[in-house]
């Protein structure tokens, strides 16, 4: 008896199901929109595994995720839906089972975020120098409130660190300090006194006794007129 292959009456092998389940490719559900968040229920890959997205703790990681989150949207329909939603909302969070798996942002928001990141990076670079300048300002006797006001420049788009302004204030204070030192030095100099005839002759390198003798003798090396 032929045990193998056992066939059904229809001729199909009896040891295998007639239909074999394929990979768990669920249907793409409609995104749930809630407060600018697009929740996509079907985020499984072809192998049935959910993608793992590292938690984002700072802006740099957020930007990294925004730039690479597109790969998590495996279907063109999901990508289209999320992209459209991102264009409308600016920034959407992509979540699966209440777990954030990525963010998708419109180009304008990405530009803004990159700009903000650059500004933040610059601020972080300038902060140590700002601390040094503030310390110098305090040592020069500048009022702390004045120094901080000079350091923080309020513009239309918010407050910014203005190192040049504070440096200028410090330079002015240093110049004033130098001027004060010069003034103190001048004050310490002995005041000019009236000079006697002997002192004047001595300064000019003249022999006053000889001049007196000549004047007394009527032979002074000078001519006078009184009218």
């Amino acid at each position, binding site marked *: 008896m032929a045990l193998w292959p056992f066939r059904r009456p229809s001729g199909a092998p009896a040891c295998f199901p007639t239909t074999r389940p394929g990979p768990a490719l669920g249907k793409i559900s409609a995104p749930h929109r809630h407060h600018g968040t697009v929740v996509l229920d079907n985020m499984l890959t072809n192998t049935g595994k959910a993608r793992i997205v590292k938690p984002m703790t700072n802006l740099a990681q957020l930007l990294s995720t925004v730039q690479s989150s597109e790969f998590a949207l495996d279907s063109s329909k999901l990508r289209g839906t999320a992209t459209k939603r991102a264009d409308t909302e600016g920034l959407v969070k992509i979540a699966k089972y209440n777990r954030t798996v990525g963010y998708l942002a419109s180009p304008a928001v990405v530009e803004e975020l990159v700009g903000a990141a650059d500004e933040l990076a610059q601020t972080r670079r300038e902060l140590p120098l700002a601390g040094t300048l503030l310390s110098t300002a305090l040592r020069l006797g500048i009022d702390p409130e004045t120094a901080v006001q000079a350091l923080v420049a309020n513009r239309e788009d918010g407050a910014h660190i203005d190192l040049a302004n504070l440096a200028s204030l410090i330079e002015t204070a240093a110049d004033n300090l130098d001027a004060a030192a010069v003034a103190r030095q001048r004050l310490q100099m002995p005041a000019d006194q009236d000079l*006697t005839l002997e002192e004047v002759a001595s300064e*000019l390198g*003249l022999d006053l006794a000889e001049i007196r003798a000549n004047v007394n003798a009527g032979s*002074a090396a000078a*001519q*006078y007129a*009184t009218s």
Partner: protein
Amino acid sequence: MSAYNRVYVLPAARTDIKGLGDPGVRKAVVSALVEIERNLEFGPLLEARGSTGDLRGCRKVYVDKPTDQKPRFRVVYWCAPSERRPRQARILAVGARAELGAYQLAADRYNADRLAQGLLPVEDLDDRSLGVEPE
């Protein structure tokens, strides 16, 4: 040397003298100061004029090294504490005679020196108080 000093040169006037380039002129100026030391009323009295300011109580002496020309320099001084009782000559300015610079410098320094001596400005005093009233 005198028992006490009868001539005092203001610091600014000392600068005037040192600014005279010719050593012969400087020596002539010092000779003139010796003449003033011998006779405090050596130079004639000045008056209040619009071009020179109020120099009542001051005196002038023209001086130069020996030449055939008129003396080219002017020394302006005043007698303290007053013309009536002169005890010392205070040299205010030395400058070129051709200009009125010495007068203008003296006018600026005169009142300052009077105040330094504890005296009123000349504008606040009449001729009698200054001791320059003709008798």
